């Protein structure tokens, strides 16, 4: 506990090839002890291959995986002090909840009484009633199974837990609740969690740091805050969700011009050697109607449609060149306007994000 920033899990030049296809390409990554690290990427980005390499179900074509400085590559999966929660959960259908949780302990030849004690403690920790011990796996609901799978993974007290999109099969509400619960369990146990998902939103909620993968490469690593506010490229910016994107070229030290003639816009700062790239503006920083007046970045368009997002309202404005702009507002400051009205859109220079590719 003295030096938490010490590298716990280290990946050095990890590459995995399947024949001609490179699934993971030269990934370097350091994860510190106690961290909640999430790998995010669309399907086919190599994140599933990554987790299989980390767990030991596949071997990297080249590169080293080190855990606390010791090489982990040649240690078979069943000898690694790591554990994984599977996408399918992979609970044993022929065993009860209790037997599932106790499985790793039974394998390790722990005495039955102690196993039972540990299983009961885990049920309690994961907010499952103790009488679940004798319940069949198929009598459990999706959320309960999720907890059983986590309890089983925690049973032998692994140093490192991997998660392969375990929440993806659940409905929205349950998923949202379990995301937070998982983060709470991470706090309680203080263990290192490595999570993979295709949902950056999910990653944002839970993670200390996020790594974004695309085509087998790590594109950006950073805290949720960094990923959100300083996306390294268009892919990362758009991956987070709906953003307004313009293709622009530099016209001055802090000005860019839309290549489709939408106008000139101001930015706060420009990346080094920026010549041509994309201007990203998030819907929630955009002003609409009277609020836009007086802002340096302004354009006009027709109010086309609105969408209720629950806590927020989203408005679509179409500019004369046909670009669709999205603006979001909280429910207590809704925009009152008629569809078809000409409205002003605006944003501050510091809300402009410029990326090269």
């Amino acid at each position, binding site marked *: 506990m003295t030096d938490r920033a010490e590298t716990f899990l280290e990946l050095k030049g990890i590459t995995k090839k399947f024949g001609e296809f490179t699934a993971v390409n030269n990934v370097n990554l350091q994860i510190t002890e106690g961290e909640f690290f999430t790998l995010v990427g669309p399907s086919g980005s190599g994140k599933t291959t990554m987790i299989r390499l980390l*767990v*030991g*179900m596949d071997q990297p074509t080249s590169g080293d995986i080190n855990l606390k400085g010791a090489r982990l590559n040649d240690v*078979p*999966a*069943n*000898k*690694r002090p*790591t*554990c*994984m929660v*599977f996408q*399918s959960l*992979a*609970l*044993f*259908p*022929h065993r009860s909840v209790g037997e599932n949780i106790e*499985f*790793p302990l*039974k*394998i*390790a030849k722990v005495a039955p009484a102690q196993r039972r004690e540990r299983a009961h403690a885990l049920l309690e920790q994961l907010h499952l009633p103790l009488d679940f011990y004798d319940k*069949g*796996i*198929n*009598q459990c609901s999706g959320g309960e199974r999720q907890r059983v799978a986590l309890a*089983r*993974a925690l*049973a*032998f007290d692994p140093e490192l837990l991997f998660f392969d999109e375990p929440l993806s099969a659940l409905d929205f509400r349950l998923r949202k609740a379990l995301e937070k619960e998982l983060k709470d369990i991470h706090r309680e146990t203080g263990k290192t969690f490595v999570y993979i998902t295709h949902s950056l939103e999910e990653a944002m909620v839970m993670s200390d740091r996020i790594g974004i993968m695309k085509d087998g490469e790590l594109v950006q690593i950073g805290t949720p805050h960094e990923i959100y506010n300083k996306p390294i490229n268009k892919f990362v910016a758009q991956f987070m969700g709906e953003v307004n994107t313009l293709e622009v070229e530099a016209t001055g030290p802090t000005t860019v011009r839309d290549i489709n003639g939408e106008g000139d816009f101001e930015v706060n700062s420009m990346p080094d050697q920026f010549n041509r790239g994309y201007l990203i503006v998030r819907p929630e920083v955009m002003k609409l109607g009277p609020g836009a007046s007086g802002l340096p970045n302004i354009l006009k368009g027709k109010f086309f449609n609105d969408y209720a997002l629950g806590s927020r309202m989203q408005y679509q404005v179409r500019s004369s060149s046909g670009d669709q702009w999205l603006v979001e507002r909280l429910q207590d400051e809704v925009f009152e306007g008629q569809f078809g009205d000409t409205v002003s859109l605006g944003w501050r220079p510091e809300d402009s994000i410029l990326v090269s590719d």
Partner: protein
Amino acid sequence: MAEGNTSSKWRFNPGALAAIPASVFLFIGFAGPLAMVVGYSFMPAKTFSLLQIPTLENYVSVVTDSYYLSFFWSLLLASISVFLLFIICYPMAYGMAKLFGKWANLITALIVLPLLISENIRLFGWVLILLKNGILDGTLKYLFDITASGLLFTVPAIVLGIVYVYLPFMLFPLVIGISMVPESLKEAASDLGASRWQIFKEVEIPLSMPGIMIGGILTFILALGSLAESKILGGQAVIMIADDIESSFTFAQNWPKGSVLSVMLIALSGIIVFILFRKIDLDQIIGRR
């Protein structure tokens, strides 16, 4: 209300109506003969009529006679055969379900093909191989100067025949059973620390149990009632119960005695299957409960 009226017009639901032809056929062709066998078992010895006064004399004579020996041999050889079949078929089935890929189809075809040929003909093929101065004996004598003349008409020859003839009935249920085990469960077990052997014992065997059970019961029942193997390959080495039943009905012309033996064999098989299914809950294994 209106619905009640229309449904009362159909006194049977369509499913029951559709099942009538098959039910009638099964009743006449399957249940009928069985009932007759049970009926004959209570008739006086050597009669061909079902209308005599029922008696238990055949049961008494069968129990006091030495038929227990035939039952013993049938049970023993069937058990040994099922055990050998399992040992032989599990690795094969594992390969076909998980490893061989497209070659599995070819193997399936090669195993199914002999089923198109009469069992007796195939067994006579083995006679030619095992016979004194036959294919095996002759080849060994010629090449290595070893004699293997005493192979035919022995108990191992009968077991060989049973294993050979009933192999597909063990193999294919096992293939299905093994392919029902999800890879992710094996990976999870490994991730949780299980060795190869522990994965096999804790995950693969229990989860492929439906296939093992079906293959085991199928081959056990078939082997218990097997006749041609002991006649053709066994000669008079041992008498199995099916031999006794056949000769009671044909040579001895004593239908009631044959019926008693049949009833006892059916009851024995039924009890064994019943006990097995009681002990192993297939629904629970598949995860339906």
